[in-house]
């Protein structure tokens, strides 16, 4: 298995475990679980804002990763990025199903976006969640608003680029451009912080 030269030693190890999992190696699954289950669980908790659901998504993710491990291609991304994409997809599916349910009842005095409002306490802006999201929010906070908004809607809320365009009232091309520029800037911020 040829690995990209810029893989870290941890990523190399994880890629090898994925390779072994592709051949049915359960201990390799255990090892990979040990390496990545905590950041993944954290990510799913942030997306779903529900610890129990996040735990279920974590388990489903590793099941799916195990079954798809043979298809992992290190040339297309790091093991963690590949796994978190699979898991994020599962989490977003759940989020969409949840969105389809009736929302909390709000009376006429309800003010959405109220930071201390338990009527919108699933909102990312509650102080509790602000802390949880700190790791990425800090980096996102350094982006211009349009890029940050587009990335948050895409990454945390699972909206498609068309939905984001609709929500923000912007042309699709502008949203795509914001997403690309946002990711570029995020990469720069990441490098600066390392």
């Amino acid at each position, binding site marked *: 298995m040829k690995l990209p030269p810029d893989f870290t030693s941890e990523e190399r190890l994880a890629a090898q475990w994925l390779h072994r999992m592709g051949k049915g190696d359960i201990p390799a699954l255990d090892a990979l679980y040990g390496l990545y*289950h*905590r950041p993944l669980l954290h990510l799913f908790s942030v997306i779903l804002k529900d610890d129990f659901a996040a735990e279920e998504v974590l388990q489903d993710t590793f*099941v799916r990763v195990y079954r798809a491990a043979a298809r992992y291609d290190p040339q297309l991304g790091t093991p963690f990025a590949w796994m978190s994409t699979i898991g994020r997809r599962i989490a977003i599916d759940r989020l969409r199903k949840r969105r389809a349910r009736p929302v909390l009842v709000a009376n006429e005095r309800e003010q959405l976006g109220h930071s201390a409002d338990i009527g919108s306490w699933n909102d990312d802006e509650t102080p*509790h969640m602000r802390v949880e999201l700190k790791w990425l929010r800090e980096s996102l906070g350094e982006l211009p608003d349009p890029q940050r908004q587009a990335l948050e809607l895409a990454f945390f809320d699972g909206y498609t680029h068309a939905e984001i365009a609709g929500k923000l009232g912007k042309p699709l091309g502008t949203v795509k451009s914001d997403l690309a520029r946002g990711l570029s800037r995020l990469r720069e911020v990441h490098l600066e912080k390392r």
Partner: protein
Amino acid sequence: MMDRQTEELAALYVLDLLEGQEREDFERRLAGSPELRRQVRDFTRGLHDPAAVDPGPARWDLLAGIHQKLGADTPMPEPARAGSGRRRASLPWAFIWASAAAILLLMNLALLFLLESGSPAGKGDRFAGIAEGAVEDAGVESADPDPIRQFLEARIRRLEGELSESRSLLAASEETREVLERENREVREYNAGWQREYHRLAARFLPFFEPNDGMGRFTVIEMVDARAFATDAPRRGFADLAGEFLLGQGNIAGTAPEDFVGPVAAGAGTASAASAGELGLTPLARSESTARSDESGTEPVPPGSTEAPLAGEYGEAVGFTVWRDDEQKGFLDIYNLPDPPDGSAPYLWVRSSEFEDYLPVGYLPELENGSGSVFYSVEEPNFTPAEIVITAEDAVQPGSEPSGEILLRGP
């Protein structure tokens, strides 16, 4: 240099926003373009960095569920079966190393014993699995027993060193496991303590907030001390928990937690609820403020109980308020409020999202050990608090705005 459209496609791919044919086409391009692959990896590193996450505790207990879902008939690793997953991460390797080193050491010691007891070691003999070439590589001639002995002694010394290192590793891993288990136990106990706190809390304030029209609207704000506020330290989650309890009552929507216990403390909030309509502050009588109750678990508080939450148990200065819009009154619960400087007293201020200035509410009543509950109201129609702060103000003449040391603040 990558064109803008390709870069945008790479961004959409990383964000998992490409689907169907578009995704397949992109992956084909990706396979043939090292530059594009590098771009994708660069994008993912900014977004998916496991090291940038504060990961929280390990959850080995969830691994068994994965095995179960996979239908894996492979036996679970021993530590996971024992419910102590952390051991599995380090113990087996240390043990394997130690065992291997011990076996090799014994074999070499046996060989050395044979050599010293006069067993002939002729040219071309192989020693304890060491090929002749290996001996020669070590700079000795295999025909000479002394260099061979030297070689073996050197090897035994090295193996002894490795064995000692493995033993240290084994001991360290055992020690680490014990420390982690102890920490886990402490965390569990700590969490259980807070869980009990939440239940008692619900029992106390739910009677007050029980809706009479099925459409109450509440605002919950959690408060921390000035240092925690400045560093944006993690909150205890009171606000979320209080929100859960309120939602669980069915007055807004949602499902009650299975172990939901309130409202059970009959009459606990009624006395103060009756006076909460008055302006200013009314302390809610409570008995012992720091009663530690190990036997209580998460059992419902018996009706009529006035037992206070475990206010002083953890020594943290925290608090939260629940504000009821339709009745325009608030419940404030405080734990371990620091003593204000001499000559000053804790003073409560609130601010709505519509105004920049804080509204003065009043001095807090004297709280036992800095812990207690208070009901309050504000002389402002249709008020909803967005921020709340307790400061140490002049004990006789408070100013018109917060000017003293901040004791608690939220959100």
